[in-house]
């Protein structure tokens, strides 16, 4: 659309300039002598009309409506992390004995609060690459979920998601920070 418009307006302009021939005389386009080398990019012929240089325009993005129900009481509930996170070794999604103990306690709490729905988030530390960590985070979340299901929690109460290394809990660059970030983290999404 824009291209056609530009070509038309350019041609009209060229016609106008040729017709009026005043302030801006047509710019001389001398026919070049035949170049000695084989590189004959411009043999003698009438010059081509100016080539339009369009630049496509990005349509501004529409903000996505905020459809998450703001729930102060859920935030209050989650602020205290009632469901204990479980932590992992580097590059691993194996549940250690300590992790299993935490999950047993989480299972008890989930049984006592049978209406709670939970999202299990898998997280990684900043080492390792971003892409693999998205998958590893999934593995960690799924491992925690599978264990909870084996303890009798209904699978449809438990969603999983991975944030890879994109949402660290501790922004530090030492093992203490890394250890906090290699985790499955529980967020209550309904009660």
């Amino acid at each position, binding site marked *: 659309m824009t291209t056609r418009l*530009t070509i038309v307006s*350019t041609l009209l*302009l060229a016609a106008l300039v040729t017709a009026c021939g005043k302030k801006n005389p047509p*710019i*001389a386009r*001398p026919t*070049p*002598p*035949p*170049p*000695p*080398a*084989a*590189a004959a*990019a*411009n043999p003698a012929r009438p*010059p*081509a*009309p*100016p080539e339009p*240089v*369009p*630049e*496509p325009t*990005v*349509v501004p*993005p*529409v*903000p*996505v409506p*905020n459809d*998450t129900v*703001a*729930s102060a009481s*859920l*935030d209050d509930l*989650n*602020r205290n992390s009632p469901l204990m996170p479980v932590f992992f070794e580097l*590059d691993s999604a194996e549940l250690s004995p300590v992790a299993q103990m935490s999950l047993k306690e989480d299972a008890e709490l989930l049984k006592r609060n049978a209406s709670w729905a939970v*999202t299990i988030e898998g997280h990684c530390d900043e*080492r*390792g*690459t*971003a*892409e*693999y960590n*998205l*998958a590893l985070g*999934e*593995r960690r979340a*799924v491992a925690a979920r599978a264990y909870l299901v084996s303890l009798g929690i209904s699978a449809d109460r438990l*969603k*999983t*998601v*991975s*944030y890879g290394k*994109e*949402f660290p*809990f501790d922004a530090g660059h030492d093992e203490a920070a890394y250890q906090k970030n290699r985790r499955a983290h529980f*967020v209550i999404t309904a009660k």
Partner: protein
Amino acid sequence: MIDKLTTLTTLFAAAALVAAAPQAPAPQKPPDIAVTLTGENGQPPRLAVPQFIAITKDAETQAIAKTITDVLFDDLTFEREYALIPRDTYATIPAATSFTDVPIDRWRELNADYVVVGTVQKMPTGIQIQVRLLAARDRSQAFGKEYSGSSANPRIYAHTISDELHALRGVRGIARTKIAFASDRDGERLGGTIEQRTVQEVYMEDYDGEGARRLTVNRTLNITPRWSPDGRSLAYTSYRRGGPNIFIQNIYEGTNSDLTKDGASYLPAWSPDGTRIAFMSTHDGNPELYVANRDGSNVRRITNNPAIDEAPTWSPAGNQIAFVSDRTGSPQVYIVNADGTGLQRLTTAESYADKPTWSPAPNSEIAFSSRNGPGSDIKVINLATRMIRQLTFGEGTNESPTWAPNGRHLAFVSTRAGKNQIFTISADGKNLRQITKVGNNKFPDWSN
């Protein structure tokens, strides 16, 4: 000389598994573009790029002429197909006022093979640019063109001219290409959760770092953007509906579509013909690779292994997919046919390899991130010889490589400047440039 020596020394000092000294890739020569311009003895032609001439004398036109000249000089310097004569030597050469009074003998004295001469003229409808490439030997014209359009973004004229001049060298220019990436530069936080989490939105910018613009306002994590082959759409992973799904945004139409709805899909990769997208999903219980049509239909699974399978990238012919699997215990690069048959392992000497990116034809190379101590470095494996060369050497951590469409450069993420920033580097490891500066910028993807 010194460069070569430093590179070789560093290589020997690096892991013994790295093979011979890095070889510069052969210049891309698309079959339909012959090399029409060479310098002496096949060397890059020596090129002078004096200031474009403002035909209309107003300040705006003069500023446009300067911008076009500067950007063209940078674009030509980037590709290293012309030997640019340094601009500080131009001071003694009288400026031409038109194509007919170019002091070609003076340029010849500076050893130029060719001179780029350009004019800029303000028109009622915008601007008109004329450019000619004159041989210093005899003033003959090796190239000439006129362009017209808006004056809003003068850089596009320089980029267009640069691509034309590279076509004369038998090289596909990339001056008009774009880089998509994820950025937290707006500093927005995810609401409704206990931890303070900074969102990432999808952005794009010119290959040289200019003209960054935001493409999503989803107020959540939006990562791993990938350009469709026609450059008009971006597929990306977004958590805008809770769990991660792949969305497709048609950025020049202002429309969107969903590729997936399972809330467990990540890492889209377009087939070279733009009809299919490969991606990772855990909807069957563990991370596997799938291929779907771009409208989301005909989802078929192409890996079948309890291990992690992720990070797909298509071969230029669209019949194979390279990806990462940790089925042997650590993430390694594999290649499989697009229908899931013919699995073969590619990396055997890395402790950990991720995010393969398949070079465009005719080069047959895959770049990837390779674990190196606490961080990663970018490596390139040649598929024919299986030789590996290393491009970064522990300057911060370096990951997420993506090829330029002419196979001569890569963009990647590095922490060498502090935060996560995007850099470009030439395929021979030279010519490093930082192209993002604000916030954290990750997951780059280079358009066609």
